[in-house]
C-alpha cells in the first residue's frame, strides 16, 4: 500500500483477494496447523490454536507494528512482501513452516527457509499466489524465544532473533537461531548454532558464538543502522536471548 501511495509501484491491475474465503482461517490439523495466507495478525494473535501449537508466532506478534497494522496485515502479505526485518517470515523459518503456492500449473510447497531469496524477493513466481502456510506443531521440551532491538516500540527491527533450544538445564541444546533485520532476508545462523550446541553457557561459549555470528551474518547498511552496528546488536541479542532462555 505505501508503495502504491508513493507512486513507487504503479501496477496495471490491482487484484483484490479479500473475498477469497479459502485463503483465510486457522485450522488445527492432526499433523500441522494450517494458516490461510489472508489470515490477519490480529486473528493469529487471538488464536488459541496458534498459542498452543505455534508459540513462537504468538510470541512474535506483539512485536509487529501497532494494533492498527495488526488489524490489517496478513501473514501471506508479510511473506510475499518479504521485508527483511519482518518478524513473521523469520518465525516461519524458525518454526520450519512450509509455504504453499498455487499457480497455473498447480500447487507447490516451499520450505520457509528457502522462500525469501533476497531483498523483497521470494521464490514466488509472478503467476503464483501464496495460499497457505503449514506449521509443524511445536514439540514439548523446547524453549522458544523471539526478541529484537528497534528504535521505537513497533518499529521494524534493527535486528531480531527468533528460535528455540531444547530444554536441557544449563546446557545449550539443539539451537535453532533465525536472525531478521540484519541481512536482506531471515538468516538461519548455522555457525553460531554449531558454536553453542551441547555446550554450557559460559563466557567462552558466549564469545565463540559472537565470533561465529560473523560467518552467518552479512548485515546491511541503512539510515537506521550501519552494518557494524547491526552486527554488534546481533551479538548482544544472541547473548541476552540465550541467557534468558536458559534462565526460564
Amino acid at each position: 500500500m505505501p508503495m502504491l501511495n508513493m507512486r513507487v509501484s504503479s501496477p496495471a491491475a490491482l487484484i483484490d483477494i479479500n473475498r477469497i474465503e479459502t485463503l483465510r482461517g486457522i485450522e488445527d490439523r492432526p499433523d500441522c496447523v494450517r494458516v490461510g495466507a489472508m489470515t490477519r495478525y490480529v486473528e493469529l494473535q487471538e488464536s488459541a490454536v496458534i498459542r498452543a501449537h505455534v508459540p513462537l508466532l504468538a510470541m512474535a506478534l506483539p512485536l509487529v507494528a501497532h494494533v492498527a497494522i495488526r488489524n490489517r496485515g496478513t501473514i501471506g502479505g508479510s511473506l510475499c512482501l518479504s521485508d527483511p526485518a519482518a518478524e513473521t517470515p523469520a518465525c516461519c523459518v524458525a518454526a520450519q513452516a512450509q509455504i504453499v503456492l498455487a499457480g497455473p500449473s498447480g500447487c507447490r510447497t516451499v520450505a520457509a527457509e528457502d522462500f525469501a531469496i533476497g531483498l523483497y524477493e521470494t521464490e514466488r513466481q509472478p503467476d503464483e499466489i501464496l495460499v497457505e502456510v503449514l506449521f509443524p506443531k511445536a514439540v514439548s521440551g523446547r524453549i522458544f524465544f523471539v526478541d529484537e532491538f528497534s528504535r521505537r516500540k513497533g518499529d521494524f527491527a534493527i535486528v531480531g532473533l527468533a528460535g528455540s533450544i531444547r530444554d536441557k538445564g544449563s546446557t545449550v541444546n539443539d539451537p535453532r537461531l533465525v536472525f531478521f533485520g540484519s541481512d536482506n532476508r531471515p538468516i538461519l545462523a548455522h555457525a553460531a548454532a554449531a558454536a553453542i550446541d551441547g555446550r554450557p553457557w559460559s563466557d567462552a561459549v558466549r564469545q565463540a558464538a559472537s565470533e561465529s555470528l560473523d560467518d552467518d551474518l552479512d548485515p546491511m547498511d541503512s539510515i537506521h543502522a550501519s552494518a557494524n552496528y547491526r552486527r554488534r546488536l546481533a551479538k548482544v541479542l544472541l547473548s541476552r536471548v540465550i541467557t534468558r532462555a536458559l534462565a526460564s
Partner: protein
Amino acid sequence: MTSSAESPIGASLPRSRAARFVTGKGRYTDDFTAPRMLFAAFIRSPYAHARILHIDASAAMERPGARRVLTAKDIAAVCKPYRAVNNIFPTMNSPLQHAVAIEKVHYQGEPVAIVIADTRAQAEDAAEHVQIDWEPLPAVTDAEAAASSKTPVIHEGFDTNLCFQTKIETPDIDKCLQEAAAIIEESFIFGRHTGVPLEMRTILANYDASDGILTVTQSHQVPHELQGIYARQLGLAESKVHVICPDVGGAFGIKLQAYNDEIAICAAAVILQRPVKYQVDRLEAFISDVQARDHHVKAKIALDANNDILAFAVEDIFAIGPYPQFPRSSLQEGFHVIQLTGAPYRFRDYRGVLQVVFQNKVNAGLYRAVGQPISCALTERMIDMAARHAGRDPIDFRREHYRREAEFPCKSPSNVALTKMALLQCHDAVVDGMQIRALRKEQAALRERGILRGIGIATFVELVNPGPNYYTNAGLAVSAQDACTLRLEPGGTVRCRVSLSEFGQGTDFSIGQVVAATLGITASAVEVECGDSWTAPFGGGSWASRGIMMGSEAGWRAARTLRESILKTAGQLLQCPAESLDIRAGEIVEVSGRARMSVAELANIAHYRQGLLPKDCQPELTATSHYSPRDLDYVSSAGVQSSYVEVDAETGFVRLLRHGVSHDSGNVINPLLLAEQLRGGAVQGIGSALYEECLYDEDGQLLNGTLADYLVPMAAEIPDIEIYDVATPWQPTGAPKPKGVGEAGVAGASAAILNAINDAIYPLGASIAQIPCTPERLLDVIDRARKPPAG
C-alpha cells in the same frame, strides 16, 4: 469584580471544541470545497542543486483531466518575486526568491512546475509526463563546508555562501579568557529537525474576477499577515484578499511564514480564475516544510580559581538552506543562540559569534522554541562540565550561580534585557518534585550492579512575546498588536472574536475564560472565534508563545469595557447607580449579593425591547480593545527540566524513565491546558534529543522522508511528563499576566536529556555533544572512551 474563588481564570476547564476534534468533526482546510474546484500537484526538483534546461509539458497536457501546466514564466506574469528583508540585519544577504524556480533550483523539493487537473490523482499522473532536462550541479550541504571560502558559491551573483554574520561581545572578553583559572570547551552538533504537524500544509485559493476578490482558505498561523503578503505579491489591494484559517491541526512555526508553493497556488487561482486546492503530502512535507536547527557550535566556559563563572564564549555556524525564509527571515534562531547562552547565570564576560550560511537543503524557518533548545543545551552542558570540574553536584552548582530575583530587570553580558524570572523557584520545584536527591542514591546503588542511569537538569530562558519595537525596527509588515471584539448577543452569550490564532493549543478557549472572568459570566457563555482575516479584529496572530499573553490582555480590556456598559445599562434599567451593581456567574447582582436580573435578560431587553429602556439609554453592546506591549522588547521567562535515563552501554539505547518540567508561567489561566502545552512541548523536545533528524546525503538528497524513517517518539517511548509549574495566582484587580508556555517544553528538553545521558556514561569516561543522541552515536563515544589511546 468576581472573587477569584469562583473565577474561570485558574480553572482547569476542558476546551469546548475538544469534542469536535476527538469525534473527527474538525473542519480542516482539506474539508472545504468550492464549485468548479481544481487540484494542483507540484513537480519538485529531484536535485538539490541544478539548472533547469528545458521543460516540455505537452505529453502531460494529453493526460486525462489535465487542465494546465504552469511554469515559472506563467507564474511570474501575475506574481512578483520576493526576498526576506529585515532592517535589523541590514547586511543580510538575501537572494531573490520565486514562487516557482526560474532557471536554477537550490534544494531538493523546490517547485519547478504546477500541474492543474480535475483531481489530485490526475494531476499527479499528468505530472509524471512532464519532461524536464536538468544539468545537475554540485551541492553544498555541510554547514562547516558552506562557511569555507573554498566551497563553491551556490547563488549566482553572490561571492559567498555567507548569509549573515555578527558578534556580541563584552570589551574584556579576551582578557577574561586569558586570565581564567580554567576554560572548559566542547564542540556541539545539532541535527536538522522539522515540526511534523499532523495536518500537512493545505491551501484552497479562489479568485473571483467579477469582484476581484481572492479568497484563501489555508492551514496557517497568521491570516492577517498572509492577506498582506498575497496582496503585495499578486498586485491586489489588501482589502481584496480574504484569508480564512479554519481548524488547524498543528503548526509549530512551520505554518508561520509564507511558502513558495502556497504563493504559487494563489497565482494559479488568479491565472485560472477557478478555485485551486493543494495539500502537501507527507513526503512533500519533508522536502518542503521549513526545517530548523542545523548548528555547529564551539562553546567555552571560563572559571576563576573559586570555580565561579567568569565567561561564556560560543561560535555558531548555522546553516539555513538557500534563502532566509520569507518574509521574516530565519536568522532569529542564530540570534537566540548567541543572545541566550548563559542567560540564567551570573557571569561577567561574553562572546557570541554567529555565522549564518547558505546550503542546498530546504529552508530553515522558525520552528517552535526558535534557537532556545540550542542555547539551553550549550549552556547547561557547559554548566555540568564546570560543576564536574569544580567537584560539585550540578544541582548545587546551578543554585549558587543563578541570577537572583533582585537582579531583575537587568541586561545580560550578551546584551539581552531580562525581566523577572523565578529561576530558584523553578529549580527547587523540579528538584523537590522529582526527588532528585533520592534518585542520586538510587543511581549510585544501581551503578554498583552495572546499571547506568543518569540524571540531567537543564534551566532554560526564553524570550517570549516580542514587542512592537522589534517588528517596527525590522520594517516588517507584522503586527505586534492584537485585538478582541466582544458582542453581547440575545440570550446573554458573548461572542468573542480575536486576532490571535488557534492551532491546537486552546488559546481561543483560554481567552474566553479571561473574558468570562472579567465580565462575571461563565466560560460556557463565551464563544470564541478566530482565524478569519476579515471578520476577526486586525492583529498579529500566534507565534513566539505570545497567544495567551496578547489575547488575555486584549480580552480583559474589551471585557472591562463591555462590563461597564452592561452595568450602566442595568443601572438605568433598575434605577440604581451602576457602581452599586456587580455581575456574578451571569447574574447582575447588588454588591450585597442580591440578584436583580440575569445578563441574558438584560441582553434580551437591549436587543428586542428597547422600549423598556429610558429614552437617553443607548446601550453599547459591542466592545473592542487593541493591545500591544509597548514597555518591553520581550518578556523573559524561565523553567527547569529534568530527565532520568537509563543507558544500555552494550547497545547505546537510551530509555527515558522520568521527565519533569517546571515553568514560571505567571498567572495561569487554565492549568489543564498549560500542563498539556508543557507536556506536548517536552515530547517534541525529547523527540529532537533522541530520535528526530532530517538526514541528507552529500548530494543534498533527503534520506528519510517518511514517518517510518523520520522517527517521532510515540506513547511507548515517553513516560508521563511530570509538571511542577510555578504559578502566581491572579489578583482580580488587574489584567491577568500569564507567561506563554507554547515553546517552554521544547526549549529545555534536549538539554535535560543530553545532560542525563552524559551523567549516565560518565563512569565509562565517555561524553557526547551531538543531538539527536542516537544509539549508534552513543555507542561510538563509549567505544572511543574504552579504547586505549593509540601508540
